[in-house]
């Protein structure tokens, strides 16, 4: 039985923090859960935090792209944050450039990026400086 990754809701944003190296089943579960939660909570943004992930394979890499595509279909923007250098290098070597996925260095910067595009990550008005 694979453990499930919790999906947290902050304002308009869903936060997924991946704390362990995922196996294939956990990845599929996450994909299911997230799609369901985006619809159910009417979220406008998804932040996937992979700070703790040290090893990726092509399956996990594709999962990130797939989740981004699914979320975009459901009108939510995906930001992948906290990717480690080793992970980035692996993905590049695997030929996965995650074209449609936004990225940010840290969770904070990821939330800020979503905020700039007009989302409310928490209660309160959207960033007035947003373009």
């Amino acid at each position, binding site marked *: 039985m694979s453990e499930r990754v919790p999906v947290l809701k902050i304002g308009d944003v869903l936060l997924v923090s991946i704390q362990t190296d995922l196996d294939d089943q956990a990845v599929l579960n996450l994909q299911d859960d997230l799609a369901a939660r985006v619809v159910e909570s009417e979220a406008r943004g998804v932040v996937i935090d992979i700070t703790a992930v040290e090893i990726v394979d092509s399956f996990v890499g594709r999962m990130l792209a797939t989740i981004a595509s699914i979320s975009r279909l459901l009108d939510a923007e995906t930001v*992948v*944050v906290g*990717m*480690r*250098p*080793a*992970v*980035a*290098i692996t*993905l*590049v*070597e695997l030929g996965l*450039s*995650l074209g449609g996925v*936004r*990225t*940010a*260095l*840290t969770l904070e*910067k*990821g939330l800020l990026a979503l905020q700039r595009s007009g989302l409310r990550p928490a209660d309160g008005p959207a960033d007035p400086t947003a373009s």
Partner: protein
Amino acid sequence: MADQEECARLVRLLTVEGEDPAAGWVASVAVSLRGRASQAEIDRELRELYGALVAALGKGSLDSHDEAFGEVRALLTELSRAKARQGFTPTETAISIFGLKSALEPLLTGSIDDVRLYLRFGRLLDELGLFTVETHTRAREELISAQAEQLLELSTPVVKLWDGVIGVPLVGTLDSARTMVVMEKMLQALIDTGSEQAIIDITGVPAVDTQVAQHLLKTVVAARLMGAECTISGIRPQIAQTIVALGIDFGDITTKATLADALRHALKRSGVDLPGRTR
């Protein structure tokens, strides 16, 4: 003549009372090194080696791979390593061993047994000479790989240009190994400094071919995956022409002619207000 007898005769020849065959050897080696090593040093080294060689022969062996020659081999290793580090050529190193042949020559009487003995001894010295050359080469190779490693470390600095902007000035030819080091160092620096802008300056890269371009693209994509923007600067006119002629597509990667332009661009992207020229 059996090995034992040959050895015994050799030892007798090499340790004649009142005569010093080693002296001629030392003299000939000293001449060939043309004063690049001190006489006393050569004398000490060779006499030590001579002693070990006679001792090994005394044990009744003429095979350089034999255990009896362990001491000789150790001395030779030390000698040729030292010579390699001091920049002597393989010939100058091997002459120390081969010179011993001529030292033995005047001691022989010319009988058929002596000729056979000389040939056996010559073969032994050949083997030891080859061993010396091999050790010498290995020592040089170790030196080269150590230097290459140092160069790799030296030539890939990552500097902080501004708050949130780091720069990587590349100097010299890019190959896979160097790109890997540059990539890792730059990505780590992005995290350490929390920078969202990186500038790779290739002013010091003499030529850009498809492979180098590929390496640069990979680095930029990796930086993007981590959420940082990467600009390539310092593309000289000649290199711009080459890139276009080769049909390399940098896609949507920002390229600037000079580091100053790239810095201006990076600062604008990170929201810093700049006075003066706007572009």
